């Protein structure tokens, strides 16, 4: 599991690759933690290269959504592989987390919000 963090306009983009399970989740949780204490920017999680997610990963995504909910900033996910999307849907996370098809779509969605 690897995370790359970049900035684009008014969004912080996390690009995840590899496998997000209970073994790798603590590392990712640490990386995302700083952004959740007091969000100062929109956050996009790009799942394009994420091959696998388990409930340990979903927990972090759920907590991220909760941290962003009361703020003026948006939290968006994008580019999920089919299996990852299915796990999101089965867990019901898709009902309150924005899932865009591509990174470009999510950047457009952020612009529309402004």
């Amino acid at each position, binding site marked *: 599991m690897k995370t790359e963090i970049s900035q684009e306009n008014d969004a912080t983009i996390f690009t995840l690759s590899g*496998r997000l*399970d*209970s*073994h790798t989740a603590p590392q990712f949780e640490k990386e995302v933690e700083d952004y959740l204490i007091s969000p100062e920017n929109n956050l996009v999680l790009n799942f394009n290269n994420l091959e*696998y997610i*388990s*409930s*340990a990963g*979903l*927990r972090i995504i*759920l*907590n991220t*959504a*909760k941290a962003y*909910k009361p703020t003026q900033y948006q939290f968006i996910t994008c580019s999920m592989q089919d*299996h990852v999307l299915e*796990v999101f849907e*089965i*867990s*019901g996370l898709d*009902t*309150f987390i924005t899932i865009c098809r591509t990174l470009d779509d999510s950047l457009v969605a952020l612009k529309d919000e402004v």
Partner: protein
Amino acid sequence: MELSFQLKNNGSELTTLHAILVKLEKRWALSGKTVMELNLILDELVTNIIEHSGCDKECVIDIKLIKGNSEITLIVTDDSPPFDPTLTPAPDISLPLEERGCGGLGIHLVRKFSDGCRYKRAENRNVLTLIKKLPKEHR
């Protein structure tokens, strides 16, 4: 066809589990989707065992996969204290974000991706048996 292997109650064993299942995909001519779902089921069960066994004591988790004509039977046996995951209440996935908790998601995924689950305590070990039906084209 059968495959048996052992894992320890250590998170790094999830990497071992994945490597074993990747090999099985070819050997048993399974679809990538089936392997991913078997991986998720076993990952969640092993993670549960690690969380419930306590980190101070090393436990052995025995996993056996049996391939039948139309389904795979998974038997997960461990020597940690009695724990029946089938009794875990299902999370209410229709709740809005503010009310959603994190508990029970793992076992929820196990239930959704498998087709039957049975628990027993035998000889001081937890024995969980699950059925995973195979898609028609891979039988």
